């Protein structure tokens, strides 16, 4: 169980009404992790949503040819592994703690059971999942387009 005050420190949950947070609270756990702990592995099914309250986590992705890039760096208040809420979703990245971390975790399966019994909660949370994915996708696309736009082949001079 995690207090509402702590849940409200997470951007993903911050704007949810208290009555929905009260339903999420008993499903949430507060956990600590050592540096270098791998929380999620790329291409493996995701079971947990992680919401960071302290520390720093890198989300790395590996291409088919083996190149590794850091997609994102998660700081306190931010979340990852949200695909676990969708069921049968594999991770796009590997998540590694780069320092001692504390995170709120939620089991995707338990959350899906909550959504099935309470569509108001399901709609509110799933709307945020969609928004989160949209923002993340647009951020990565914008950055990639920026690098394209200043590439000499596109923009000589």
């Amino acid at each position, binding site marked *: 169980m995690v207090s509402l005050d702590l849940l409200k420190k997470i951007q993903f949950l911050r704007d949810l009404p208290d009555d929905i947070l009260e339903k999420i609270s008993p499903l949430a756990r507060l956990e600590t992790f050592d540096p270098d702990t791998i929380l999620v592995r790329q291409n493996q099914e995701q079971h947990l949503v992680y919401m960071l309250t302290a520390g720093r986590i890198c989300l790395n992705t590996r291409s088919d040819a083996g*190149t*590794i*890039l*850091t997609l994102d760096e998660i700081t306190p208040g931010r979340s990852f592994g949200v695909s676990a809420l*969708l069921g049968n979703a594999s991770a796009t990245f590997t998540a590694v703690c780069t320092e001692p971390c504390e995170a709120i975790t939620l089991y995707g399966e338990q959350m899906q059971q909550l959504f099935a019994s309470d*569509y108001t909660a399901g709609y509110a949370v799933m709307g945020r*999942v969609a928004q989160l994915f*949209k923002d993340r996708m647009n951020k990565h696309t914008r950055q990639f387009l920026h690098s*394209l736009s200043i*590439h000499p082949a596109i923009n000589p001079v």
Partner: protein
Amino acid sequence: MVKIQDLKQIFILESMPDHLLALIGQEAQLSIFSSNTCLFKAGEAVDTFYMLIMGQVALTVALNPDVDVILENIQSGRTFGSSALISGGPAAYSAICQEPCETITLSGARMQKIFETNPELGFYMMAGVARQYKKTMDIRAKMIMKTLEQHPEMKVSIHDIEKLTPAY
């Protein structure tokens, strides 16, 4: 009004119960657009959600006045304009019909009102939209990785944060 059978051709509606499809059907409209029709432009507010029955729609972004990048070609069964169903906000891309297209459309504002009174429908739609975003996000991440491998010099220009910086 659109028939349930037509709605079932749309991937994000595949797992939606029939009673909810019937509600969507009442709100949906079938529209036909000719080739080269611009359905919305990057930067404009998106007020309509599109579900493609037939044809192909290119999602494009202008890099500069001379170069457009096609982010994705949407084909039958896929959707776009999801922003209309969530917070709105400006479109991140332009949507242009590459050939004559048949689409099912929903008014974003109208659907958001219905979601408030029928959260079951809202939940199923949002779950579908989230899965679609996840799929697109995965495809786009692979596209970016592939391009960066072919043009490693581009990594140098990707520097404005934590996003896509070389790890090692």
